[in-house]
C-alpha cells in the first residue's frame, strides 16, 4: 500500500457515510420529467423538439453548436407536454422540457453501441453521449478531453476521493461497477496516450481501495493512491497536488500541469456507453439526511422531480427544514420539491429543523482559523472585509477569484461568519463591475 497523501489546510469534517453499505436501488419511471437545457458549464442548449412531439429514451431533445456545451437527452419515452423557462439555481431562467412518460421506456431507434476509429471520433462520441463531469461541477467531458495541442498531457487522475460528508455514490460505483471503471480507464489510456493513471481514494474507504488495487495489480500504469481523509481532498487542485505534487497555478486548468481529472462515475459511464450506446439519462444519487426515512443510493432518471425521489426513499420522517442538492459543504439549497434531478446531482439531502438552522453571525475575532483552513492559501477574513466595504481593489488584491468555495473557512469560523457567501457575493460584485 502506498503512504497516505494529502494537502495543506482543509477541515476535518465528520464523514457520516450512512449509506455506504446499502446497495444501490433503481427507481421506477416517474410520471413526468422536467429536463433543463443547461446541465453543464457552458452555452445552454436549444430545444430540438416541440410541444406535442413523441420522444423516446436517449433521443436528443436539446443541442448546441457551441463547443463548450453538452447535448441533453430524453430520459423517458413519452410526449413533450410543455417547454417553458424555469428558475435555475443561479437565478437565471433556463428553458425546460417537460415530458409525460408513457411508462414503456422505449429506446430510441438510432441507439446502438457506438463505433470509433480514432481520437477525433471518440471525442465526438463523448460529446453526443451528453457526458459532463459527474463529480458535481458539470464541465463537458469532451472539452476536458481535448486540451490545446501545445499542452502535453501525461497523467490521468480518477477522482474517487468523495470527501463531502454523506455522499457515497462514487463509493457504491466502485464497489458495484469496478469492472466498468477499469474498462473506462483502459479505453481512455488507449486513445489519449496517458503515461500514468492514478485512482485517488480517501482512506476512509478501505474496501474501495482494496478492490481497485487488486484489479489494477496486473496493469503497470494504473495505481491506486491512498489519500488522507480530509475535506476538500476531492477538489481538483487538492487532488492533483496530493497525487502528483504538481501545483495548478491560479487561474489555470489541470491541463496546464499535464493532468486531466475525471470522476469514477464518468469513466464508468464511458465504458457503459460503449457497450450499450445509451447516453447519459440516469444518475446515481445519494439520498440521506436527518429527515429522510430510508437513506440509500438511488439510480434516478434525469429530470425526475425531487419529491418522487424522496417518496421512493420512504418519504420524510420529520418536516424537512432544508433540502440540499449536493453535499452539506457545497450543495445548493432547493426551494421546491418540484425542481428536478440534473446531471450534476450527486446527492439529495434533507435536514430537519435542528440541523438546518444557520447560526447567527457575529464579529470577526481575527483568530486566523480560516487562513489555516483555506486549501487555496487565501485570507478569507480580509476578503470578507473587502466585500463588506465594497472595496473591489482589495478583493482583487486578495485573489478572490481563486476561491473554490469549498466552505472550509465557514466551517471552522468560531464567529460563524458567512465567509463562503461573501466570497460568492464578492465574485458577483467583480463580475458586475467588469460588465459595466
Amino acid at each position, binding site marked *: 500500500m502506498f503512504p497516505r497523501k494529502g494537502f495543506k489546510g482543509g477541515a476535518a469534517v465528520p464523514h457520516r457515510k450512512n449509506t455506504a453499505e446499502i446497495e444501490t436501488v433503481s427507481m421506477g419511471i416517474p410520471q413526468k420529467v422536467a429536463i433543463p437545457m443547461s446541465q453543464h458549464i457552458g452555452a445552454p442548449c436549444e430545444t430540438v423538439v416541440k410541444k406535442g412531439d413523441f420522444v423516446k429514451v436517449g433521443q436528443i431533445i436539446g443541442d448546441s453548436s457551441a463547443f463548450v456545451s453538452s447535448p441533453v437527452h430524453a430520459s423517458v419515452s413519452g410526449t413533450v407536454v410543455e417547454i417553458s423557462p424555469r428558475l435555475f439555481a443561479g*437565478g*437565471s431562467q433556463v428553458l425546460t422540457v417537460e415530458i409525460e412518460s408513457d411508462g414503456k421506456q422505449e429506446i430510441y431507434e438510432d441507439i446502438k453501441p457506438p463505433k470509433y476509429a480514432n481520437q477525433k471520433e471518440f471525442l465526438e462520441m463523448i460529446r453526443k453521449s451528453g457526458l459532463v463531469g459527474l463529480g458535481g461541477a458539470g464541465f463537458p467531458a469532451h472539452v476536458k478531453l481535448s486540451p490545446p495541442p501545445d499542452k502535453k498531457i501525461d497523467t490521468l487522475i480518477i477522482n474517487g476521493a468523495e470527501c463531502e460528508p454523506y455522499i457515497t455514490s462514487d463509493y457504491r460505483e466502485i464497489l458495484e461497477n469496478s469492472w466498468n471503471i477499469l474498462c473506462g480507464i483502459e479505453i481512455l489510456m488507449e486513445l489519449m496516450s496517458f503515461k500514468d493513471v492514478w485512482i485517488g481514494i480517501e482512506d476512509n474507504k478501505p474496501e474501495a481501495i482494496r478492490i481497485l488495487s487488486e484489479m489494477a495489480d496486473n496493469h503497470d500504469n494504473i495505481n491506486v493512491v491512498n489519500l488522507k481523509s480530509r475535506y476538500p481532498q476531492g477538489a481538483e487542485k487538492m487532488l492533483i497536488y496530493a497525487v502528483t505534487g504538481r501545483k495548478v497555478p491560479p487561474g489555470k486548468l489541470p491541463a496546464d500541469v499535464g493532468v486531466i481529472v475525471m470522476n469514477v462515475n464518468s469513466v464508468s459511464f464511458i465504458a457503459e456507453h460503449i457497450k450499450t450506446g445509451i447516453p447519459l439519462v440516469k444518475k446515481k444519487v445519494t439520498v440521506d439526511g436527518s429527515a429522510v426515512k430510508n437513506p440509500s443510493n438511488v439510480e434516478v432518471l434525469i429530470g425526475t422531480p425531487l419529491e418522487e425521489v424522496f417518496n421512493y426513499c420512504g418519504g420524510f420522517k420529520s418536516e424537512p427544514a432544508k433540502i440540499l442538492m449536493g453535499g452539506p459543504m457545497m450543495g*445548493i439549497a432547493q426551494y*421546491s420539491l418540484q425542481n428536478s434531478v440534473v446531471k450534476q446531482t450527486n446527492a439529495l439531502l434533507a435536514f430537519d429543523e435542528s440541523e438546518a438552522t444557520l447560526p447567527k453571525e457575529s464579529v470577526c475575532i481575527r483568530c486566523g482559523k480560516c487562513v489555516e483552513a483555506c486549501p487555496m492559501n487565501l485570507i478569507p477574513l480580509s476578503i470578507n472585509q473587502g466585500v463588506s466595504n465594497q472595496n473591489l481593489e482589495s478583493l482583487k488584491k486578495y485573489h478572490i477569484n481563486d476561491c473554490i468555495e469549498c466552505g472550509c473557512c465557514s466551517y471552522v469560523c468560531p464567529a460563524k461568519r*458567512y465567509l463562503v457567501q461573501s466570497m*460568492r457575493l464578492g465574485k458577483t460584485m467583480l463580475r458586475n463591475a467588469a460588465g459595466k
Partner: protein
Amino acid sequence: MELLMPAYIIGGLGIVFGLGLAYASKVFEVKVDEKVMRVREVLPGANCGACGQTGCDGFAEGVVGGTCAANGCPVGGAQVAAQIASIMGVEAASLESKVARVMCNGTFSNCSSKFQYSGIEDCTAAANLFGGPSACSYGCVGMGNCVRACAFGAIVVEHGVAKVIQSKCTSCGKCIQSCPKKIITMVPASNEYAVRCMSPDKGNIVRKNCTAGCIGCAKCSKVCPVNAIKMKGALAEIDPQTCINCGECIKVCPTGSINRYFCEQQSID
C-alpha cells in the same frame, strides 16, 4: 540678559522663517481661478458624483473650464444652477428636477415568498440564489442595497420593498447602480403616475406570485387620452414625457399596480 537670549533666538528664527514662508507663498503660488472657488461655495458639497465628475471640486472646475453645464448638478437643482449661472455670467437653462422610483409593489402582503433566506443581508447575495426569496424574481429583494448606497437617507425599506422619500431624493442615481434587479428608474418629479411592476411574465404567472403586479390586461393603455401608456409584451409602461397626470389609468387598473405619487416640490422655486 542670559535669560532673554533663548527668547530672542526663537523669536528671531520665527521672524526669518515667517518672512521665508511669506515669500515662498507668493513665488510658488498655485493660481486658482476665483470663479472656481465661488462656484464651489454654492455647490451642496455632498461629493456624490451625480454630475459625472469626481466630486464637487471637479464639477466646479468643469463648469469654469467649460466642460460642464451650469445646470449640471442635479442635487443642487434650479437654485444652484441659477447661482452658478450668475457667477459665470450666462443664462441658466432650466433644469428639470428628477426623482428615483422603485418600480415594485411586492410587499410582504402582496407578493408571496419562495423560501426563507438566511445569510448575508445583501440584495446581490440573495438574488444569486434562485433569483431571491420572493416569489417574483423581477421584484425588489428588500435587503436594502439602495438604502446603504443613498448618501441622502432618501430610501427606506418598508414591508420588504424599498421606497424613495421623494422630498429627500436628489436624483444622484447611486441607488440605480446598487440595485441587482435594476428596478429603480429616474423620472421627472412632476410625473405622478407609474406602473410599479417590472415583471415581463404573462398575467397568470404574475397573478400567482403577486397580487399587485401588472398582468398586462392593457386596460390602462386603452383608456389613456394621450397614448402615454405602451404595452411592452405583458407589461404596461407609462412614458413620463407624454403623461399629463390625468389619472384615468389608475381608475381602471384591476390589480393596483399603477400608483400615484404626491411629489412635494423640492426646495426649488
